[in-house]
C-alpha cells in the first residue's frame, strides 16, 4: 500500500466566544498549516472539511468555510462529522491516486449556538426526542454505567479531572487553563447527575487544519515526514437502549482496523501517546480500554496516581477537558499526535514518542468512532 504523510498542522482555540466569523477561523488555520508545511495554496489538490451545520445555526455552512480555507476552483468535500473523519476520507482520497496534496480543515464555533440543546434535534422525533434526552445526558449515562460496572468512586473521577487540567496548563493551544483541586471538583454543581460540571469537556471555539501528502511529494519537501500508519472508523447502533452503555463497540472496531493496518499487535507497548476524545473524564478511561491500551477495568488501579500511569501517555495535551471546539476537537487530537511524534509538542512533549494515536467519536452514546495512528 502507498504511504501518506502529514506535512503540516495548525490549531486555534479560545475559551472566550470568538469575535471572528466562523469561517475566518478556517482561513487562520489553513494559512498557518500550509505555512508550517512549507507549501502554498496552489499545491493543494483538494479540500476536506469536517464540520456540522446546525452548530453554527445555518445549513450548508461549508459554503463559507471552503472558500475561506482557500478552496477555490479546486476539489472539495465536506464530511458532516467530527474533523478526524474528514482526515480518514482525505487519506483515502490520496490512496485512491486522485490527489497528491490535500488540506483537511475543521472549524467548531460552539459559542454560536447552544450545543447541548441542538443535540436533541438529531434524535428521532417519534421515540426518543420527547424524552428530553441531550448529548450530555447520554454521555453521563454512559459514564455512570461505566463507573458502576468498575466501582469507580467520584473521588477517582475528580482526580482524573485534576490530571487533565494539569496537563492542559502545559498546552498553549488548550482553552481551559485554570487549575482545579479534587475538592473543587467534588463541590462543583452537577451538570448532569451524577456528573459535576468539571467532569465534562467544556465547549469552546476553535479550529484545526492538517496538510496531507503522497509519499513522493512528502519526500521532495526534504524534511522527515510523519506517516499515517493506520486508520479505522466504524459505526454502532443509534438507539441507546440497543447497547451496553459501559462499552464503546464502534471504537473497538475502529481500533482493530487501525491496528491491523499499522501492524500493531501489542498496543500498550507499541503506542507511545494516545490523544483521546474524552467528552467526560470517564470516556477517557473507557476509550483507553476500548483501544486495548489497558485491560478492561484494569485502569482503575492507576486512577489513584493518575500522573504516573504506566504504558502510553494518555492525553498529554489535557484532551477535551482542556477545551472542546465542537467538530474541530477530533482533528486537534490528530494535530497533537503529529506534534508529539515530531517532537514539537512543547511543554507537554512526551519523551521519545515515536507512535501516536488520535481518536474521536460522535453521535448518541458515541455511536461512531475514528482512529488514526501516526509515526515517524
Amino acid at each position: 500500500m502507498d504511504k501518506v504523510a502529514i506535512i503540516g498542522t495548525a490549531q486555534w482555540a479560545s475559551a472566550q466566544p470568538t469575535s471572528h466569523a466562523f469561517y475566518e477561523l478556517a482561513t487562520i488555520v489553513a494559512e498557518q498549516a500550509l505555512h508550517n508545511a512549507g507549501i502554498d495554496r496552489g499545491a493543494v489538490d483538494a479540500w476536506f472539511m469536517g464540520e456540522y451545520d446546525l452548530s453554527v445555526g445555518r445549513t450548508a455552512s461549508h459554503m463559507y468555510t471552503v472558500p475561506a480555507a482557500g478552496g477555490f476552483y479546486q476539489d472539495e468535500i465536506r464530511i458532516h462529522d467530527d474533523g478526524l473523519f474528514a482526515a480518514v476520507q482525505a487519506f483515502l482520497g490520496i490512496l485512491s491516486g486522485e490527489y497528491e496534496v490535500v488540506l483537511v480543515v475543521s472549524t467548531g464555533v460552539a459559542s454560536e449556538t447552544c450545543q447541548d440543546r441542538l443535540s436533541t434535534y438529531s434524535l428521532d422525533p417519534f421515540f426518543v426526542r420527547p424524552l428530553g434526552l441531550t448529548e450530555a445526558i447520554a454521555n453521563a449515562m454512559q459514564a455512570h454505567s461505566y463507573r458502576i460496572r468498575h466501582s469507580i468512586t467520584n473521588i477517582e473521577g475528580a482526580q482524573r479531572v485534576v490530571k487533565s487540567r494539569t496537563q492542559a496548563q502545559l498546552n498553549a493551544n488548550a482553552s481551559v487553563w485554570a487549575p482545579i483541586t479534587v475538592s473543587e471538583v467534588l463541590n462543583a454543581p452537577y451538570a448532569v447527575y451524577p456528573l459535576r460540571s468539571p467532569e465534562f469537556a467544556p465547549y469552546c471555539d476553535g479550529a484545526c487544519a492538517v496538510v496531507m501528502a503522497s509519499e513522493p511529494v512528502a519526500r521532495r519537501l526534504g524534511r522527515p515526514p510523519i506517516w499515517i500508519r493506520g486508520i479505522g472508523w466504524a459505526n454502532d447502533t443509534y438507539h441507546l437502549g440497543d447497547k451496553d452503555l459501559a462499552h464503546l463497540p464502534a471504537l473497538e472496531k475502529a481500533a482493530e482496523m487501525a491496528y491491523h493496518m499499522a501492524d500493531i499487535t501489542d498496543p500498550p507497548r507499541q503506542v507511545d501517546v494516545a490523544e483521546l476524545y474524552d467528552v467526560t473524564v470517564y470516556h477517557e478511561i473507557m476509550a483507553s480500554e476500548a483501544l486495548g491500551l489497558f485491560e478492561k477495568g484494569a485502569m482503575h488501579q492507576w486512577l489513584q496516581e493518575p500522573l504516573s500511569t504506566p504504558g502510553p501517555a494518555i492525553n498529554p495535551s489535557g484532551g477535551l477537558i482542556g477545551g472542546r471546539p465542537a467538530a474541530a476537537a477530533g482533528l486537534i487530537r490528530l494535530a497533537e499526535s503529529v506534534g508529539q511524534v515530531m517532537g514539537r509538542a512543547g511543554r507537554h512533549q512526551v519523551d521519545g514518542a515515536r507512535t501516536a494515536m488520535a481518536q474521536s467519536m460522535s453521535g448518541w452514546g458515541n455511536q461512531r468512532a475514528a482512529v488514526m495512528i501516526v509515526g515517524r
Partner: protein
Amino acid sequence: MQRVAVVGVGQTHFVSHRKDVMHSELCFEAVNSCLRDANLSIDDVNAIVFGVMDGFDGVDCLDRWCAGAAGGYGRPFMRINTAGATGLSTGIAAYHQVASGLSDVVLAVAEQRVSESLDAQSILNTAACPIYDRNIGGTAITLGSLPATRHMGLYGTTHAQRALVSVKNHRNACLNPFAHLRFEVTVEQVLQSRLIEWPLRLLECCPRSDGAVAVVLAGEHVARSLTDRPAWIHGAVSMADTFFYGDRPDVAYRDNLAVAARRLYRKVGICDPRKEIDVAELYSPFTSLEIMQTEALGFCSEGQGVRLVEEGVTWLEGDLPVNPSGGVLCTNPIGATGLVRMAEAALQVMGRAGEHQVNGVKTALCHGLGGVLQFQTLMVLGAEPR
C-alpha cells in the same frame, strides 16, 4: 489503487410526501433494492457512505438514525454533506474509498425528505449570511431566475425556448417509474403556468421530493465476478467557487462548471464532449440552468444551449440526450438528487434504464450542483474500463 465500477442501483419512488414510512425505513427500501439489484447481501459490503443535507428532514444529522437501516451497523460509515451537491459527493467519496484499495465493495446511500420542512426555501435561506445576504430574501429559485434573465439579455433566449426544456423533461419522466412528476406538458401550459419568480414559471421549476437512492460500487475483481456489464467509473471532479455571488465573473455562472468540465475531460481523455458523451444526467432544477449547463459542459458554444433543445439534440431520441430520466425538473430530493443522477447514468451505461434507455450508451456524464451555484461535481461512467 484499483479500477471501480457501479454494479447495482436502487431507488425508491419519489413523491411529495412519504407518509407511510419513517426516515430509516425509506433508507432501508433503497438499500435493499440496490443490494438485490447487484445480487449482493449486506455482508458483502465493506463500508457505507451516506449523504443527506441537514435542515429539511426535521432531524439533524439524520445519518445517525439511518445508519443501521443503511447497513452501517458495525461497519465503517462516512457521512457526507455538500449542500445540493451532496448526492454526487457521496458517490465520489465511495469511489475514492474503493479506488484506494482499502475496500472492495462500498455502498453509497443518500436520502432526503423535503416534505418534513414546511418551506424548503426558508431553510435554504438560512445558508445565507445573516448580516449581508439573508434579508434580501434570496432563495434557490433566485439562482435560477437571475441567470435566466441574464441569458435572455445576452442571447435573446425566449420564454418559449426555455419551455421546451420543460416539455422534454416531463415527457421523459413519464417513462421513468421512479420520477416524481409524471405528466406531459405543452409549451402553452408551461407559459401559462403560475409565475414563480420572473421569468421562471411553475412548470420551469423542480418539485420538492421525498425519497432515497443507493448505489453499490465495487473494485475491478469483484465487479467482473458480479456482472459482465458494470458501469466503470472513468473519473470524477468536484469544484468549489466563492460563496459571495457578487464575486462571480458572470451570473450566467458558466465559469466554474466550464472549468470543472475541462478538468474532468482532460482527466478521462474526452476531446469532443458533444461526440464522445452519449447521455448526460444533470442537476438542472430550472429550465434556465439546463440550457446554461449544456453550454458550460461544451455540448455547444456559448448561447447556443437553446438550439440543442430546439433541434432535438437533447431529447430522448436525439444525439446527446440530456436528463432522459426526466431529471431534477421532475424529481428533486435535494441531498439525494446527485446520487440519483449517478444511478441513472450507471443504468444507461449498463443498458438497464428501461423505457427511457438511450440506445448504445458507451459513455455517460452525471452532475451535481450545490450552494449558490457554487459547488459543481461531475463524473464520467463508461461501458469499458478506462
